[in-house]
């Protein structure tokens, strides 16, 4: 009986057109759910970090966290000052950017304005490969190749130091900066270059005074992206910079970054609910806030300097 009713309803109402429309709607919903996973991921990240930090900041005051000059959460007498980890992160990132921004920019200007298309086709894949090498391999390179080399120049340099970690990190970031900056410069209309060349400018003058300023929006966001990669980079510093939190701006000393600390704690066994477990989330939240600030600056710069052709 129900069978009959059901079949009669389905033949009457579910015409091919309706079935088709239903199917279309269902597919759209499935696709929408897939697209929402990215939003869910962001929400989950914020939720997990804030939840554990909530517990953390009930044990440790925010004031202490931001001003204490010692970070020794794994010691018998723990102190929870984020400053030493921040200084490590800032020193290594600054060295990396000191390498990556000039080298990346010069390489980008060369590839975009000087190199002919054949050379560019050959060189670009190699730069991409440089960016694709796993960071733990770069860590090995920094520890066992760059540090011994630097020790020949600076004999008192310790085996673990922030200098070599930062330099190698700069090498890793250079291809990012150069490829994004190059894209930005190539998007500048040829008319501007022709105008400049017609006035008797050399390629270099055109590049520096016409193309570079016109592409500054894209170039600055490539710098910001480079900076946020440097801040979040983990394995190079964990391998080569030592794991000793150290409130110093001296690149010749050992140091630990926020990321390296998280790795160090995770290598041991941390149970949920302990203060050790919560410290890595507090450190993680600090890291997320740092990259967030960088992203906001980048967004502002891109908007402020955008040229519309």
């Amino acid at each position, binding site marked *: 009986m129900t069978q009959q009713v059901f079949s009669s309803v389905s033949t009457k109402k579910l015409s091919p057109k309706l079935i088709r429309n239903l199917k279309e709607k269902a597919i759209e919903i499935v696709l929408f759910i897939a697209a929402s996973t990215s939003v869910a991921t*962001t929400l989950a990240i914020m939720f997990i970090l804030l939840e554990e930090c909530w517990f953390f900041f009930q044990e440790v005051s925010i004031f202490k966290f931001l001003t204490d000059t010692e970070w020794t959460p794994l010691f018998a007498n723990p102190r929870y000052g984020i400053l030493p980890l921040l200084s490590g992160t800032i020193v290594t990132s600054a060295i990396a950017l000191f390498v990556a921004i000039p080298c990346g920019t010069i390489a980008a200007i060369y590839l975009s304005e000087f190199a002919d298309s054949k050379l560019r086709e050959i060189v670009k894949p190699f730069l991409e490969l440089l960016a694709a090498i796993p960071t733990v391999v770069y860590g090995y390179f920094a520890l066992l190749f760059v540090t011994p080399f630097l020790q020949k120049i600076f004999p008192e340099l310790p085996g673990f130091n922030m200098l070599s970690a930062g330099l190698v990190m700069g090498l890793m970031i250079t291809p990012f900066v150069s490829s994004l900056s190059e894209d930005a410069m190539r998007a500048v209309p040829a008319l501007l270059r022709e105008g400049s060349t017609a006035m008797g400018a050399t390629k270099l003058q055109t590049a520096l005074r016409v193309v570079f300023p016109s592409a500054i929006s894209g170039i600055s966001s490539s710098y910001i992206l480079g900076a946020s990669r440097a801040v979040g980079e983990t394995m190079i510093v964990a391998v080569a910079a030592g794991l000793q939190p150290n409130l110093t701006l001296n690149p010749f000393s050992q140091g630990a970054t926020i990321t390296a600390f998280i790795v160090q704690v995770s290598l041991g066994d941390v149970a949920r609910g302990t203060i050790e477990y919560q410290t890595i989330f507090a450190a993680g939240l600090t890291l997320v806030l740092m*990259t967030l600030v960088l992203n906001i600056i980048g967004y502002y710069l891109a908007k402020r300097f955008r040229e519309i052709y």
Partner: protein
Amino acid sequence: MQNLVEIRRNIKQRQLFNNIFALVGLFIILVAILILLALTLRMFIDGAPRLNWGFFSNFPSRRAENAGILSAWIGTTLVMLVTAVAAVPVGVASGIYLEEYAKKNWLADLIEINVTNLAGVPSIIYGLLALGLFVYDWSLGESVLTAGLTLALLILPVVIVTTREAIRAIPNSLREAAYAMGATKWQVVQDHLLPYSFGSILTGVIIGLSRAIGETAPVITIGALTFIAFLPDSPIKSEFPFISFEWLKAPFTVMPIQMFNWVSRPQADFQVNAAAAGAVLIFMTLGMNAVAIYLRYQLRKGIKW
């Protein structure tokens, strides 16, 4: 006359600066490529004494010369399998939604900004998310499944962005022709857009996976072990139902973690192992990237709209 000499000198000087800059640019690029070659060569030379059959078929060991990467490369393969199975459908579906279905409203904008921002989140943060959510809240444990899902989230933005770019590159006339024949939206996507963008999407997936293979930090955070002397349960069984998913729950290690473990030991013997593991890792990632670059090159040559 005096003026002309000055102008000539000025032009010469500017040309000189121009040429010097060109040389500096070329020099920087050459140095970068040289470093890439030196790095690769150095890994292979340092690791050469260990790069033999035993290295691939031995478990890690306390004695450097007996230690191998069997559990690591099998772990990496299984984790990558989970990553690909999770990231590809979700990523491609998101890309299709954002490019073909989404209306221009705040929701689409939100998702779009979100994808861009996620691409900039440090990888270790994904590790923290996975530790809190997958390992504890969902009780998936420190398993192959957890690692695969974590890395899938990590490469999702890459897959979404390449899918969108690939679909956007298809000219509108193709869609219009299909709609004019009475095709529904999904029919257009399934029969026209996906086949045409398949190659480009595949390139993006390979690049994403090559990134996932080398990721160390998030996998350490979720608690991958560094010393594993057994293999996960085999996925293929001799008796019914022939396929088992027990391996998803197994503890594991992966290549970059094995390498990290060996690098951080003080003994020089283990650093030889680290170099050998690094050589294998470089071979894997560079190989995957080379395939992707070649594929892209072929596609660019083949398609002329």
